[in-house]
């Protein structure tokens, strides 16, 4: 093998190696860029999804604000509401001719099954129809409430006494 042939052979081998190196580099670079593009597309898709969800939630919040406020109004916001409640009930009983006294006013802490609430025990007496109507009115309070117990007994002829325990739920907004 002549010197010239050896030189050509060596130059050819070097050229092939350099070309292969460049091709390998380009190949790996394209793969890396492809993976990066896929990740960016995934992030962009997630972002778009979150934006759409956010817009939908905002729209839902705006559209339902009135009915949510109406629902929220059926709860005591704090213990102060119970004072207003008592005052109005006592005023109502007084104006209607019932003798009413508030026997108990307690705050019942929340448990696993029951929300925090105000427990009120009313004892009232008066004419039968009035006592019965008042009892039914207490069952129909426009609050998230429940009547736990109601005892009615006749005192004298048309005079009845009622003892009613009612729970009104507190839900701070």
């Amino acid at each position: 093998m002549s010197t010239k042939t050896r030189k050509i052979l060596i130059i050819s081998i070097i050229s092939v190696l350099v070309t292969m190196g460049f091709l390998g580099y380009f190949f790996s670079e394209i793969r890396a860029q492809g993976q990066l593009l896929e990740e960016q597309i995934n992030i962009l898709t997630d972002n778009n999804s979150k934006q759409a969800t956010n817009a939908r939630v905002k729209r839902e919040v705006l559209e339902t604000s009135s009915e949510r406020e109406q629902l929220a109004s059926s709860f005591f916001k704090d213990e102060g509401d119970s004072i207003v409640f008592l005052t109005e009930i006592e005023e109502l009983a007084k104006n209607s001719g019932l003798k009413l006294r508030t026997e108990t006013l307690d705050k019942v802490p929340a448990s696993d099954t029951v929300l925090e609430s105000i427990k009120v025990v009313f004892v009232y007496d008066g004419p039968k129809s009035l006592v019965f109507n008042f009892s039914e009115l207490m069952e129909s309070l426009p609050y998230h409430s429940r009547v736990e117990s109601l005892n009615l007994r006749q005192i004298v002829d048309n005079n009845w006494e009622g003892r009613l325990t009612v729970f009104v739920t507190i839900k701070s907004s």
Partner: protein
Amino acid sequence: MMSFNHFKKKLLGIFGKREGLLFDKDIMHPARDWFFVIFAGLIFLLAGGFWSVSVYTQFSNVSVTEVSETTEGGGYQQGLVNSALLELDQRILKYNNLKSTILGNKKYVPVPEVSEAEASEPDEEAVEVPVEEEVETNDESATPATPVSESEIVPTSDFF
């Protein structure tokens, strides 16, 4: 007929010393080398083209406009809210009627019950004594002391 010496001479011609030749065909064979290089290049070209096309098709149809709302329908329960609002409205109406009755304004009209609202939120327990549903308004004991109009009843925390 070929003799042993003839074979030996041929083999020596192949594997023996190449004295007298212009170049060694084992090291450099123009036709073979050209064919090999062109064939290998063609293979590389086809493989590269195939790979380029596959990469192009993989990323040419990429779209980021697709939106998947995974939380659709998981939040606000409109049916439950409507049911609760319906029951609340009925309680308000019943309350106002009873209040007017108690204060002697008008005869109490029972509110028709709606089974849907009852089924969704039964928050009242049964009482020990059933209450009359209709009462005469001219009861002597029902004193109309302070008439209250229905317009002042609003379902807020200051409801009463």
